[in-house]
């Protein structure tokens, strides 16, 4: 169990990290997600031991790591760009941490062989890193970080340098490896899809602060802040004029319309709130309006299609309504007729489709 306790890091007057706390379970896959410059790399450097925090603590199984140097933390790190030793063969790269630990020749050979099998690179043991493809180099880096049974594995943007197809297949590989070795993995990335797909838990960092630490489902369906709702997937933000009622039966006022809303998660404490609505949670009815479809939804809103963008399996539509331009994701299979620009349509959504967030101003 790794505990990040009220961690702060300042460089001069610049705050790279401010009061970040969360705990990572043994054997879990946790992602630290944030845009570039958010402080996620600083957090990684702190965990790895290359940078000392200004305040706060990092504890492994209850023991503070602050006085443990990077080389003694026993963490396997996969660096951005892999940082393979260019003058050493694949086999020697993987053997390096074992040699540093003074293991015997036979044992080193055995463990290197196992690690090569784990990442399926046995035929490449005698190659130099530059004789390998990007994906293969990445797997050598993984093998090198896993071979010495580290207490945890840190992965710094391990997939960002690869093209999309390779990224997808290596994502699978990362999942498989995590299951196979059962170690604690911490991934640092700016890629939301990667975070949602791979992780048990995601820590979202923005401006050096922890926005939310939760499982992917909660993050997506009940974001705590506007930043999270915006950064993970797409959202419509509807500014509200007033809100009243109890959490499970609220009435909201927006653009002259009464909207019905219910919320399981805690309501934000602030007075100014916005309603966040995912594009796929809004139903759109076009063509001749068929009776019944979507008519059970308490929220009904007429609009006009202002823009259409085709993305294959679905279509993105921007619909102009009284409460602003709403982005709607259309499932091509369930449409009654192909949507046209300028067409009058009916939007609807369920009371529990959206979530209320404090209005911090747009990002």
């Amino acid at each position, binding site marked *: 169990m790794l505990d990040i306790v009220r961690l702060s890091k300042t460089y001069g007057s610049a705050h790279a990290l401010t009061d970040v706390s969360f705990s990572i379970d043994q054997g879990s896959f946790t992602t630290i997600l944030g845009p570039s410059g958010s402080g996620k790399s600083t957090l990684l450097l702190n965990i*790895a031991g*290359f940078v000392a925090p200004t305040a706060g603590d990092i504890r492994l199984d209850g023991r503070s790591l602050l006085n443990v*140097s*990077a*080389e*003694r*933390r*026993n*963490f*396997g*790190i996969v*660096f*951005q*760009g892999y*940082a*393979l*030793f*260019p*003058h050493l063969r694949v086999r020697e790269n993987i053997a*390096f*941490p074992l040699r*540093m*630990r003074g293991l015997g020749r036979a044992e080193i050979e055995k463990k290197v062989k196992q690690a090569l099998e784990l990442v399926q690179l046995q035929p490449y043991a005698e190659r*130099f890193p*530059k004789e390998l493809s990007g994906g293969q180099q990445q797997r050598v880096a993984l093998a*090198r*970080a896993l071979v*010495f049974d580290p207490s945890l594995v840190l992965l710094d943007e391990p997939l960002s340098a690869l093209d999309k197809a390779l990224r997808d297949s290596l994502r699978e590989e990362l999942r498989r490896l995590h299951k196979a070795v059962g170690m604690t993995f911490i991934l640092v990335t700016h890629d939301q899809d990667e975070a949602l797909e791979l992780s048990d838990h995601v820590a979202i960092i923005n401006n050096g602060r922890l926005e939310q630490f939760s499982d992917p489902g909660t993050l997506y369906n009940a974001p705590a802040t506007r930043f999270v709702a915006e950064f993970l997937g797409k959202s419509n933000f509807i500014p509200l004029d007033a809100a009243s009622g109890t959490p499970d039966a609220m009435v909201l006022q927006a653009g002259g319309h009464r909207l019905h809303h219910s919320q399981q998660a805690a309501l934000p404490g602030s007075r100014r709130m916005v309603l966040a609505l995912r594009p796929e949670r809004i139903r759109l009815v076009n063509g001749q309006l068929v009776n019944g479809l979507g008519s059970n939804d308490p929220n009904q809103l007429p609009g006009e299609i202002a823009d259409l963008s085709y993305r294959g399996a679905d279509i993105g539509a921007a619909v102009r309504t009284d409460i602003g331009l709403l982005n709607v994701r259309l499932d091509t299979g369930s449409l009654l007729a192909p949507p046209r620009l300028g067409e009058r349509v009916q939007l609807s959504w369920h009371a529990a489709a959206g979530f209320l967030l404090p209005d911090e101003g747009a990002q």
Partner: protein
Amino acid sequence: MNALRMLDARIFLIFILPAFLFIGGLFVYPVLKVLAISVTDPQPGFGNYMLLLENPALRRVFLTTIRIAALTTIISVAVGYVLAYRMHMAGALELRIIVFCLMFPLWTSVLVRAFSWVVLLQNNGLVNAFLLDIGLLDKPAPLIRNELGVLIGMVHVMVPYATLPIYSAMRGIDPRLNQAARSLGATSWPAFWRIFFPLTLPGIGAGMILVFIISIGFYVTPIVLGGGKVVMVAEYISVQITETLRWGLGSMLATTLLVVVLLFVFAFRKLTVLRQGGA
């Protein structure tokens, strides 16, 4: 159409022709002419080259030259490595100061430099006076008019040539490699010896070739600081050409020098390519 394309290609050759004629006519041809004297004067044949084997004085000059050049190379590269490492670790201001100090000897005239060393190193010079004052010596140490003096003067000016290629090699090393080594359990010494140092070997090789090639042809510094006692090949050649008028011998020595230099360039290139993992 094809003929036109061929013509096009040939037209481009015209553009490099002036440079080719200039270098070929005014440099390569005369040098070859001079080198050819080694097999034509005083009589055609390899008589001059046989002297290299037969004449002990000649052999001594050659051995002295190679020994001094080799020592200069080793010392300069060792000092240069430490300096380059310091530069690699330094902040912007410190880096600027080191670079300035490093370049300063190169902006100074070779004569001024050599005679300044004479002033510093002679029997009643600053260095000996200081060592006598603090009681480390009871009589002045011979610091010039010997190989030590020549070495001091040569290393002084060769250090920048050794430092810069090494520094450039260090700059080219991904700083994450050091972090990677540490994360894998390497403390500073193993991280340095197993990762950082091997990756600077091409820079060391380049520095060594450069220093050795330049050192082997040193002329003014050995004359001034060697005081006639340490004779290197360049000075010996000059004597053959201007005083004894044995042009064939001088030309033979020049040719031999050139061949030695080319051999070293070739050998070191092979070495650095191998070290980098077969390129």
